[in-house]
């Protein structure tokens, strides 16, 4: 026992006890350090994470405002439908990613399981429609056409359908009063995407995950006003989602109504007549190509001449906007966007462009006046115009001798404008423009609003094209490489053209200017540009920004925000010249004019009609029919792509629209009781404080019986422009 110290322990044990103590306290120090790190150093971070944990936001979507016609008839409103939705987050928690549940659901809904599964998958670059392009955290609608029976089944057997809800929901409805679809003008909605949420996060109009966003047409332009603001209530919840208290409540703002200048009845007539005109012309054989007219697309714009407000706007081919509601099916999507769809989503009135043809002659006549030519001087309307060894013929090579510019419009004489265009080109220096060249024809075209947007309140309007010296140069620079590669001297027609373009495509040639004077060549215009320009001639020279929206009215009708007509310029000619143009255009429908045969019996003394026909040649295609008309109150422009002549294809349709608006029969007798809109609608519809809208009934359009109408296509042999 001698080596055992007094404490009873050996040094080995003593040392080891110290080691134990050191180990123990280093463990405690580690814990203390970690505690400091978590709570003091990184505490804020965890506090944030914790608050995200226990706040549940309940979103009460704002009911989207209606889109009304000028008298209050709803063009787009909401209806309550039973929407069955699936929560992806819930489904993904299941072992089979919810396949069993979705298969059961498909059984209840009478759909194919694959159909249901496709609807709830997420869109990406490799996934074709149908797929969900909204937020993955938002319940995904499987159908919005569930019956009460189906909804009850899903609710009562909720244990069989975890993650599936069936609830009455306000769903967009495009009402198509009197079959007026107004499809491209109204646009459509689709769910908000994650990128959009991110982008709009810090703006004054952030999106919620549940939001539907206007993708085109009025739905897009007026999205913010229509959408309103969803109510959001934040609840503090526990892990099981039980509510422990209300943290914050934001009541939200219901969407406002948009009153448009569209008149559902006129819209219905316009849509019907456009469609009918295209159907009719397809039965006729094109003499040039020897094939029936394709009439593949068309548009009509009815505008208030004094304000630029759009009363009707139709575009063919069209579609049923309701196809988008509740998620679009694969078949519908292909029909709307596929290669063979002919793109019905495009609004041809604002997004379709074509060479102008003779409707452009009001520009050329104005340009001539600006260049110093007198409107009432006599200009030789020869049967053809020669430049060097090339000859430019009049329509069907008819000559009229020396005539005024007014008569040149009446007869749509090409040679008068060829000559003027050519002379002006020479005066400006020909191929090499001299300094300070006026370029009156091109400048006037720009001043009439062509080559730039009209500023209509519909998205993605196209500009058209005025092929002036600038454009020539820019276009050549952009394309010369490919032209020079493709071009071959003495090769095929295309190769020869490419060869010439490669060498001197940047030059504004005499040939270009001659063609431009009658709206041919590289010039492109849109129907809405043309309507704006003709409305300006009608109203004394003001170019209005066309508008469809007329007022934004709060759901209780108390706040009215009018959308006033705005102008983007004046016609570049004085009042006298405008009168001269007006007179010339009036003579177009009078005996001898190119559109006279379409206006037999028209009460010209009571409702003076002005018109201009146009038949534009398009390389490789059949001619484009243009018809631009106006009265004191309205402008109507119609175009049919590959539809033949202006008066031939579009004439009867435009006449029928006027007849319906003014209440005229074929003999020109006016019956104001039948008249849909003899004067533009001035007042706004009334919206009662309780939100109800007193809208008049819309009767379907009854087209005039064929026997009342003139023979559709037989016309004076040589006056058809």
């Amino acid at each position, binding site marked *: 026992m001698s080596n055992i110290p007094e404490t009873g322990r050996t040094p080995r044990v003593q040392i080891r006890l110290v080691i134990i103590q050191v180990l123990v306290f280093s463990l405690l120090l580690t814990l203390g350090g970690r505690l400091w790190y978590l709570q003091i150093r990184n505490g804020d971070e965890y506090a944030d994470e914790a608050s995200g*944990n226990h706040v549940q936001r309940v979103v009460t979507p704002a009911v989207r405002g209606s889109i009304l016609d000028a008298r209050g008839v709803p063009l787009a409103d909401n209806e309550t439908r039973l929407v069955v939705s699936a929560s992806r987050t819930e489904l993904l928690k299941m072992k089979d990613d919810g396949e069993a549940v979705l298969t059961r659901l498909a059984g209840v809904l009478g759909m194919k399981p694959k159909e249901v599964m496709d609807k709830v998958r997420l869109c990406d670059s490799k996934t074709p429609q149908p797929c969900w392009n909204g937020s993955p955290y938002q319940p995904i609608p499987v159908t919005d056409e569930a019956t009460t029976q189906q909804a009850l089944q899903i609710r009562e057997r909720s244990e069989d359908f975890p993650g599936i809800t069936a609830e009455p929901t306000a769903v967009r409805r495009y009402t198509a009063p009197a079959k007026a679809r107004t499809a491209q003008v109204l646009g459509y909605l689709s769910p908000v995407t994650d990128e959009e949420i991110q982008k709009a996060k810090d703006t004054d109009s952030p999106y919620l995950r549940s939001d539907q966003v206007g993708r085109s047409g009025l739905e897009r332009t007026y999205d913010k006003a229509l959408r309103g603001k969803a109510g959001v209530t934040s609840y503090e919840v526990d892990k099981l989602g039980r509510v422990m208290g209300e943290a914050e409540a934001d009541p939200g703002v219901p969407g406002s109504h948009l009153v448009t200048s569209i008149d559902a009845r006129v819209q219905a007539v316009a849509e019907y007549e456009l469609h009918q005109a295209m159907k009719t012309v397809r039965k006729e054989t094109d003499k040039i190509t020897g094939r029936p007219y394709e009439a593949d697309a068309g548009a009509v714009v009815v505008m208030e001449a004094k304000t630029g407000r759009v009363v009707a706007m139709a575009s063919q081919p069209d579609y049923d906007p309701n196809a988008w509601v509740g998620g679009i099916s694969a078949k519908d999507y292909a029909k709307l966007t596929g290669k063979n769809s002919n793109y019905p989503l495009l609004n041809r009135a604002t997004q379709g462009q074509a060479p102008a043809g003779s409707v452009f002659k009001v520009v050329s006549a104005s340009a001539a006046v600006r260049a110093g030519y007198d409107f009432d001087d006599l200009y030789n309307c020869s049967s053809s115009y020669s430049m060097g060894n090339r000859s430019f013929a009049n329509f069907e090579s008819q000559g009229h001798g020396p005539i005024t510019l007014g008569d040149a419009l009446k007869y749509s004489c090409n040679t008068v404008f060829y000559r003027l265009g050519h002379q002006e080109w020479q005066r400006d220096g020909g191929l090499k423009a001299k300094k300070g060249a006026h370029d009156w024809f091109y400048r006037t075209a720009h001043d009439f609003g062509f080559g730039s947007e009209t500023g209509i309140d519909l998205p993605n309007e196209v500009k058209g094209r005025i092929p002036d010296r600038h454009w020539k140069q820019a276009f050549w620079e952009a394309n010369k490489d490919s032209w020079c590669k493709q071009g071959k001297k003495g090769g095929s027609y295309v190769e020869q053209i490419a060869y010439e373009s490669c060498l001197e495509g940047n030059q504004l040639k005499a040939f270009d200017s001659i063609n431009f004077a009658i709206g041919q060549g590289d010039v492109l215009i849109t129907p809405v540009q043309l309507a704006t320009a003709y409305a300006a001639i009608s109203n004394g020279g003001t170019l209005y920004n066309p508008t469809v929206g007329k007022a934004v009215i709060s759901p209780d009708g108390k706040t009215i925000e009018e959308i006033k007509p705005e102008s983007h310029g004046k016609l570049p000619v004085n009042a006298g010249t405008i009168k001269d143009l007006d007179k010339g255009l009036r003579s177009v429908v009078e005996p001898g004019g190119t559109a006279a045969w379409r206006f037999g019996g028209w009460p010209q003394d009571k409702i003076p009609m002005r018109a201009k026909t146009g038949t534009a040649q398009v390389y490789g295609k059949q001619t484009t029919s243009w018809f631009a008309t106006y009265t004191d109150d309205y402008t109507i422009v119609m175009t049919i792509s590959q539809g033949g002549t202006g008066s031939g294809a579009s004439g009867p349709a435009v006449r029928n629209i006027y007849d319906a608006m003014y209440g005229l029969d074929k003999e020109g007798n006016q019956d104001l009781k039948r008249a849909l809109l003899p004067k533009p609608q001035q007042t706004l519809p009334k919206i009662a404080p309780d939100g109800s809208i007193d809208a008049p009934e819309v009767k379907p359009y009854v087209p005039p019986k064929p026997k009342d109408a003139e023979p559709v296509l037989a016309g004076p042999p040589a006056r058809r422009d």
Partner: protein
Amino acid sequence: MTGAGGFSVPGYGPERGGVWTRLTARDSVVRRLDWPILLSAITLSLLGALLVWSATRGRTELNQGDPYYFLVRHLLNTGIGFVLMVGTIWLGHRTLRGAVPFLYGLSVVLVLLVLTPLGATINGAHAWIQLGGGFSLQPSEFVKITIILGMAMMLAARVDAGDQVHPDHRTVAKSLGLAVLPMIIVMLMPDLGSVMVMVVIVLGVLLASGASNRWVFGLIGAGAAGAIAVTALGLLDEYQLNRFAAFANPELDPAGVGYNTNQARIAIGSGGLYGEGLFNGHQTSGQFVPEQQTDFIFTVAGEELGFLGAGLILVLLGVVLWRACRIARETTELYGTIVAAGIIAWFAFQSFENIGMAMGIMPVAGLPLPFVSYGGTSMFAVWIAIGLLQSIRVQRPISA
């Protein structure tokens, strides 16, 4: 060293006089108790009662509609634990020494019983015996004590008798066999957390016994090899592996295996310096942290009492361990030293594992935090351990 029982220790306390006099006399047991340990243990238990209460008062699915259910029971457990401590002191660890073979045998039988149909499975571990009336017993907690006592008895017997300076290899081997038998049974439950604690206890016991370094390093090596073998041979259940995977990467699956640790860390982290106040923790009242009244009780302290409150728990545990180390160093006989060292290893590792997993620096294992976590058997065991420590201190001869 002979004498009667009672609160006076034979040979040291006054033999006569009233109870009060005896309790307050200069040499009385009460005077010689280690008060810092006792007060720390009481404070920890009462703090635990508050935290358990906060964690369970909203959990109607657990507390049978009575918000005080767990509070009352925790206090009751503490009271029973206190009585057990008093009993242990009264008996004295030396008296208990004679009963060790019996106690050891009893604890082994009890853990065996768990493997029979009498046992109940909670959270994947088959570690409980249902006693009825809502009471259950977790025998592995008692095994921790009997391993300490059993090994200490064997290792110290010949050293304390003066026959040896250090326990010889044979004795060490036998004492290890004694520890391994119940450990295997507990492993079969499987209650991996408790086995880990027992391994550390054995290590502490061997260190304090003065057994040769070869044994100590051998045991550390064997522990490491065993851990690797268990993992490699797939002896662990999937949930156990997942816990380790989630420990390595808590963001792995925040809704799945990493959920506990993630939520636990959020709870502690959001407490800050002062905490959100008792009963005010969002994570706690929102029940985002599972097993919060037992394994994750520290998160309640972290969230509701903040760095100050949670730090206090660490300090109190530190006091207990510091005093225990002193007791281990100051006692004259090896038996007491080994018992104290075993208890230190047990408390230290179990606390470190429990708090460490709540803070994400240790893998998840179902171990209670001594005194603080809700759980009867655990509470009884730690209070008996306190009784042993006190007894070692009280019975230590005062030098000079």
